[in-house]
């Protein structure tokens, strides 16, 4: 015991100084990292508030000399998204129209599935769950063409119900996983007691399980709201010309511009598109992190 305790004494003697230098280094590392992560957001904001004359002078980090909201107004109401020039607001409202039914229905479906899988253990439950998980890992490119053909045969291709149905189909794995894991932590005695009282499948779900599911409903909604709002590929393929979501319209605004590119308008449109998930993120805080953790937990 002599050697370790001697070294511990030495270490204790040296510790305050190394700790001070180390702590300064630690804070420098954290601050520099934070600065790096924040820089693109800062660049977006200052660029969106400058006039094109000022942008042409260079100085991407410079604060706007004469701040203007004109680029924001243009991005929202008159920027050209391909054929029409009604601004990114069209995409915003399309995204809202896609988002609301997709989130409600996919979270509800996930809750029912998770509940049925956890408490009722129906035949083939494990096979079903494994196949669902597989759906979460396989790239959509494998499913997408047949889904287009099926949608076309059903006569819904390129409509709002089509894109909503597609979001529900690809949202099922994560929402089912979330609720299944959540209900796995609910004491089975609660379920058994309700059964003894004569409650059936739907009554136990609606009156016992759903009322105690608020935390996981919030987590699932946060995940689905950000996921569906940020979707690009499904909206591009299935939404149809009249329902293109905001991400697709944003990409059209920026990447189909001909002639001189109004970078200030582009950055204003980009912030507007990012604002919904950013708002959800900053308001929900720890819930967002919980969603990541819950989604990451193995089945």
């Amino acid at each position, binding site marked *: 015991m002599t050697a*370790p305790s001697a070294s511990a004494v030495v*270490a204790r003697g040296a510790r305050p100084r190394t700790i001070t230098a180390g702590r300064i280094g630690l*804070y420098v*590392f*954290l601050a520099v*990292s*934070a600065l790096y*992560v924040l*820089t*693109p957001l800062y*660049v977006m904001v200052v*660029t969106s508030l400058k006039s094109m004359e000022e*942008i042409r002078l*260079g100085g*991407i*980090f410079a604060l706007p000399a004469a701040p203007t909201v004109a680029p924001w107004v243009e991005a929202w109401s008159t920027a050209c998204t391909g054929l029409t020039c009604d601004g990114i607001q069209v995409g915003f409202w399309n995204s809202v129209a896609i988002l609301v039914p997709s989130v409600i229905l996919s979270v509800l*479906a996930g809750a029912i599935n998770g509940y049925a899988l956890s*408490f*009722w*253990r*129906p035949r083939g439950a494990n096979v*079903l769950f494994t*196949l*669902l998980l*597989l759906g*979460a890992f*396989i*790239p959509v*490119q*494998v*499913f*997408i063409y*047949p889904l287009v053909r*099926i949608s076309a045969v059903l006569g819904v291709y390129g409509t709002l119900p089509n894109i909503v149905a597609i979001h529900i*189909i690809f949202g*099922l794995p994560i929402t089912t996983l979330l609720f299944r894991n959540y209900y796995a932590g609910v004491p089975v005695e609660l379920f058994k007691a309700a*059964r003894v009282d004569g409650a*059936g*499948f739907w009554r136990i779900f609606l009156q016992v399980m759903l009322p105690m599911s608020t935390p996981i409903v919030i987590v699932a909604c946060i995940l689905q709201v*950000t996921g569906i709002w*940020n979707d*690009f*590929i499904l909206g591009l393929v299935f939404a149809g010309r009249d329902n293109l979501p905001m*991400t697709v319209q*944003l*990409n059209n605004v*920026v*990447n189909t511009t001909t002639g001189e590119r109004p*970078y200030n308008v*582009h950055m204003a449109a*980009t912030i507007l*598109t*990012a604002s919904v*998930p*950013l708002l*959800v993120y900053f308001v929900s805080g720890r819930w967002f*992190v919980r969603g990541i*953790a819950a989604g*990451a937990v*193995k089945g």
Partner: protein
Amino acid sequence: MRPRRTSATGTLALLPVWAVVIVAYLGTIAWTVVISFTASKSLPVYEFVGLAQYERLFRTSRWLVSVENILIFGSLFIGTCLVVGFLLAVALDQRIRAEGAFRTIYLYPYSMSFIVTGLVWQWIMNPALGVQATVRGWGLEGFTFDWAANRDMAIYAVAVAGVWQASGLVMAILLAGLRGIDQDLWKATKVDGIPTWRVYASIVLPLLKPMIVTAVVLLSVAVVKAYDLVVALTRGGPGIASEVPAKFVMDNLFERSNIALATAASTVMLVSVLAALAPWLYAEYIRASGARAA
């Protein structure tokens, strides 16, 4: 124990999911694989040509560039995210001030769309007006940061943007793992006089293995799905310099009327994903259930 009638309700309630899994997952996968063996152009025709589309695929330079790019992007993206995320998590775990603020800052890019990330970095890497021009204006004439518009660097530009977006995710997962480590470990190693870095390397990292595996799986899924980021940042260019497999499939399906070639490519993607998932699924489920039986 369980009355059969009510159990049937549970089975009935799951019928829609079964329908989704059978039609929208398994059915579409089978259909995609079938088309890949045909001579289809813009619509499926069932004139079978064996492996001809696969031979053609691996003679197509755009596909070969895509595969090479996804390997470069994937290894850089996953490797850098893990290192940066681990360092941030360890730094945040040192009882620092304003931890919540730092954590919020590091994770915010992950909440945004890849389209947003791609467009911001496209602007930052703009050769004429972006960071390159600004730094040159400060007197550093030789400074270059035009990666998104540079044939040799475009795929690295995608990696830079991707790392910026996803490092916070790794940080969040590993920080949760660090918080789960027993505080007695630190007391014990302090008593034994083991240097902190040694504790992290030899004890903490092995304890974090499940979280690291989770992070790698989530990042790998993002790599295979990489499409939006490339479309927004470089549109696969300059030329075909930053093409990726997911974009190759989409372009051939919806723009080039080459659905047989596209489905052959997506079948290759499918097989690669399943091959990569197999050992993980084995470790997670089959070995675990074996242990339970023993």
